[in-house]
């Protein structure tokens, strides 16, 4: 059976070149880079090379890159580390209601410790009101945390403008760029940002590795205490093979960025236009202007149909996608992102995300556009909400 993977915002396959770069570091060059001997020396250079590669993706200096274990850790570190380091200055944090749980739940945890958090609303396109953001800043505000791009809708936030607001008010600015990285430029020289978090497994590196850009001179408390790795910023023996893999993946992503953007966007636009024109009662979730969304992400609600059953039928045709339905999350609530956008509850349960990569093809889009309508029709005929 055909296997069409369109869930790259959930995780990507490791790129073969990335795995190849990693392979020598498991059984042969396995040393601990902190060691004095041959086994340690063999790998120290590999880490510093990878650090340079990651730094080029951020357009920062290598000394501003901290390796960690994942995007969630980066977000936890950036937010909790800032809260602790700046608690003498204030206890107010501004974030949005559409962040990934790694940000939202971290902020909620801080609320229990006496911090106050403003969760900015979004409009029905999933976008922020920057005047509202600026108005939320008080003299107690120590951190603004706004994601670079949203994982569900692909919406790209105006990080440059937010950076200017942060600078004007001298507030630290963190952005979760886990979804933006590798898809659009995340150039920390072009935007004013203090901390940028990325995760390997969204860009063709393996799961369990991430990195944070930490602008030189930014005071942050440790999140992981212990050994003095990463210039005392992150304890734990270096995950050498995965660090090498992250470096290689950043290198490839940077090289291919423009080409991949154009190609993936072409595929996504074709899928988007095809679905919207051939199936009735479909709602686009996210900003209608495709320039304001990641090139690879399409989120649509197939009204009257719950998302998990749709995914299962897709799956029977080999198509891997994801849904904002509560039934796929194991919780009782559908996607908080759809909720924040004011999407009606049935449409939230119906929301379906296709997230593409440069490995997808035109033929795959054609196949999906052919297979989708009968599946939607079959499920609608089963639905008590359809045709009521």
């Amino acid at each position, binding site marked *: 059976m055909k296997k069409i993977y369109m869930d790259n915002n959930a995780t990507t396959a490791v790129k073969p070149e990335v795995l190849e770069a990693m392979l020598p570091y498991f059984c042969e060059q396995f040393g601990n880079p902190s060691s004095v001997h041959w086994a340690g020396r063999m790998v120290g250079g590999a880490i510093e090379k990878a650090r340079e590669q990651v730094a080029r993706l951020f357009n920062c200096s290598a000394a501003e890159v901290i390796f960690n274990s994942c995007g969630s850790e980066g977000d936890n570190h950036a937010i909790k580390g800032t809260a602790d380091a700046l608690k003498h200055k204030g206890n107010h944090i501004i974030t949005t209601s559409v962040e990934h749980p790694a940000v939202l739940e971290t902020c909620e945890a801080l609320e229990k410790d006496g911090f106050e958090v403003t969760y900015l609303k979004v409009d029905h396109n999933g976008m922020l009101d920057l005047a509202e953001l600026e108005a939320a800043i008080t003299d107690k505000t120590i951190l603004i945390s706004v994601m670079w791009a949203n994982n569900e809708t692909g919406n790209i936030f105006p990080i440059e403008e937010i950076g200017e607001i942060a600078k004007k008010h001298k507030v630290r600015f963190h952005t979760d760029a886990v979804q933006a990285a590798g898809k659009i430029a995340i150039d920390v020289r072009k935007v004013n940002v203090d901390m940028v978090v990325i995760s390997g497994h969204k860009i063709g590196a393996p799961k369990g590795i991430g990195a944070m850009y930490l602008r030189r001179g930014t005071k942050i408390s440790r999140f992981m205490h212990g050994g003095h790795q990463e210039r005392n910023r992150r304890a734990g023996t270096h995950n050498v093979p995965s660090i090498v893999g992250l470096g290689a993946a950043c290198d490839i992503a940077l090289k291919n960025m423009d080409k991949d953007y154009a190609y993936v966007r072409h595929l996504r636009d074709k899928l988007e236009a095809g679905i919207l024109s051939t199936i009735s009662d479909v709602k686009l979730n996210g900003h209608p202007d495709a320039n304001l969304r990641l090139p690879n992400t399409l989120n649509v609600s197939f009204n009257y*149909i*719950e998302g998990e059953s749709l995914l299962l039928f897709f799956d029977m045709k080999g198509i891997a996608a994801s849904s904002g*339905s509560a039934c796929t999350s194991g919780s009782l609530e559908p996607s908080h992102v759809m909720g924040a956008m004011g999407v009606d509850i049935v449409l939230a*349960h119906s929301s379906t995300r296709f997230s593409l990569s440069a490995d997808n093809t035109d033929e795959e889009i054609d196949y999906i556009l052919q297979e989708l309508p009968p599946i939607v029709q079959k499920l609608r005929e089963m639905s008590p909400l359809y045709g009521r």
Partner: protein
Amino acid sequence: MYTAKVMDHFSNPRNVGEVENANGVGEVGNASCGDIMRISLQVEDDIIKDVKFKTFGCGAAIATSSMVTEMAIGKTIDEALILTNQAVAEALDGLPPAKMHCSNLAADALHEAIKDYRKQNS
């Protein structure tokens, strides 16, 4: 995560639709927690002659709906009233734990339909 029986009933659901001239209809669930099941019946001489479902919900919700219609058909309404959600889940060789909370309502929908029949016919 689903058993083969669940997948069978989900992908080839039995008795989808609305019974024409139904004399009992039941609906349970609500969209806010993710599923809505609607069962319509045709009862004759206290025996369920025809039963159909429509469901908005996950794979388990659809499979349990399909299974409950198969189990109900031909039963007397008293027999059908003692059919439990548990029995439906067992007939499907079980459901994943995460699915017990919201998908396992098919017997309830059947009972509602029977109650509706009784109300209409008393």
